[in-house]
């Protein structure tokens, strides 16, 4: 089975799940438009599956593997950043996030000079954010416990 056929089946399953949630809406008159959209999405998913079965694409050449470790590390850092930003404040969390991305994802290229530069560039970036959002645009960001 081609890759597109699998993607089509996943979309078809997604459409079926969305269709099943239409029953949760109190007033069925409000479901007319989304119902039509979901049905069309399901038909398109079925067509994609058929296309994937008929027109099988050649498997892509094997290159370097996907950097899963880096992906999950970045995802974890972003989730941690989003998780703490309301509690420790937007500016401090931005500083920590900037630092964490470079130190954790780029640990292989770290040396004392690079580490110091990272701290400085994180501080400069946070200062620019503060000037832009707090001073110029006057955006009310969550202050958290540390501002």
């Amino acid at each position, binding site marked *: 089975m081609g890759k597109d056929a699998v993607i089509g089946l996943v979309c078809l399953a997604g459409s079926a799940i969305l269709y099943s949630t239409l029953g949760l809406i109190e007033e069925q008159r409000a479901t007319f438009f989304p119902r039509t959209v979901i049905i069309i999405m399901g038909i398109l998913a079925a067509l994609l599956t058929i296309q994937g079965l008929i027109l099988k694409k050649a498997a892509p050449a094997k290159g370097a593997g996907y*950097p899963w470790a880096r992906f999950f590390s970045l995802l974890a850092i972003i989730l941690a950043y989003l998780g703490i930003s309301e509690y420790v404040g937007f500016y401090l969390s931005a500083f920590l996030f900037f630092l964490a991305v470079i130190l954790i994802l780029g640990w292989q290229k770290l040396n004392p000079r690079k580490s110091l530069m990272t701290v400085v560039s994180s501080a400069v970036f946070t200062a620019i954010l503060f000037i832009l959002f707090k001073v110029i645009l006057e955006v009310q960001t969550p202050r958290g416990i540390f501002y």
Partner: protein
Amino acid sequence: MAEFLQYFPQALTPTNLLVLVLGTIGGLFLGATPGLSPTMAVALLVPFTFYMDSATGLILLGAVYTSTVAGGAISAILINIPGAPANIATLLDGHPMAKRGHSQRALYTCFISSLVGGLFGMVVMIFFTPPLAKIALEFGPSEMFWIAIFGITVMAGLASGSIFKGLIGGMFGLWISTIGTSPMLGIPRFVFSDVLTGGVAIVPALIGLFAIPQVFSLMETYGQEQVKVDFQPRKGILWKTMKENLKMVKALSIGSVVGTIIGVIPGAGGQVAGLISYDQVRKFSKEADTFGKGNPQGVAAAESANNAMVGPSLIPLLTLSVPGSPTAAVLLGGLLIHGLFPGPDLFRSHANVTYTFIASLVLAQFSMCIFGLIMSRYSYSVMRVPNLEMIAAVTVLAVYGTYSVQNSFDDVIVMFSLGTLMYLGTKAGFSGAPVVLGIILGSIAEDNYLKGKLIAETDVGMFSYFCTGTLNLIIIGLCVVSVAYSVFSEVRQHFRKAAQKKG
């Protein structure tokens, strides 16, 4: 034209000029940075326009749109990576020029020809947009519904490798637009979490769908070696290149005309304009065999075409709300959040904003050329911004930009969730542009569909109301042609590849 001249001075106020210059420099920088797309750049800036008056906000977005297209040529020429799809044709001769030690000449040619093409496209836009907008006066709910569908079919064909994936993305966007309260009945729909109570707003969707997948893509390419060329800026090259450009009348004329024509056709896009123009100039050239080996005419053809496309690509956007490119779709979001709806009203009730915006786009061509020429000398340093710093900066700006619109952390969660989902979608061959357009045009489609349904039920019936009448049939025909052409191209490409494999 009279209105354009009347409002032109408004684009010259100190604030607007400052925003124009900052937008141009920022756009050139973002365009030149490999891995950052013009669409993402414009999407990230949309929230900032909230704090400006409508005209100034649109000037910022317009300046960034114009300069990212030209800025993308820098990385195409120097490291053989097009900054945007519109710059694919530029690298065919630009990078060979750079490899032969003519980087500076290639960059200067790029910005001078971008100015020529850009100005040509703007003149066409100024003359043709207002009369075309009047056609939209004839549109009722059924035509507006079909126009929304047409916009999605165009983007589906343009942005994804597969028309079915593009259309599924568009439908998914339409579904997302129904999350929240039903417009007619006030009933909550698909509110699976408190975060979704207010529905999915345009800004979190724009930023999430374009910025977050880019963040993960930057992570993927971290540590990869780039092709480097020797770049030593020298004095006296600019005048020499300007004189050389004056002799490229044929290449610049073909590029400007092709770019303008392609720009008006919704969905064709800058990459098509650049490649067709390049091909035509090569065919008409007496030195056809030097193309692809570092002929500056190739750079001039590609760059005049992709910039000539910018102004005309806004004609269908400003008149019918059908964007000609993914970046134009984001620009549509920028218009809507300022309460500006494409159509004749834009040129009557909001004439001051619209014409100031158009005037600023003309100024943006000059500013792009001037700052592009200045930046050319330092372009190699611009591209040295490391991926990790870029990942951190884009993510933080995405969070701040999303939060600042409604001071809502729920929006940030929606933005990040949509973005992560979109990144997984891109791995399966989906594109963010049809989804965004579905979200933007969803409420227009549903409102007009329901209004039309009410009219149809008391009058001629659903089929007659929606599927008959000259305008309805023309737009339905365009939708069918758009989808059929995409299916045809896809099948043809498949068999061509299969034949190549056998051969």
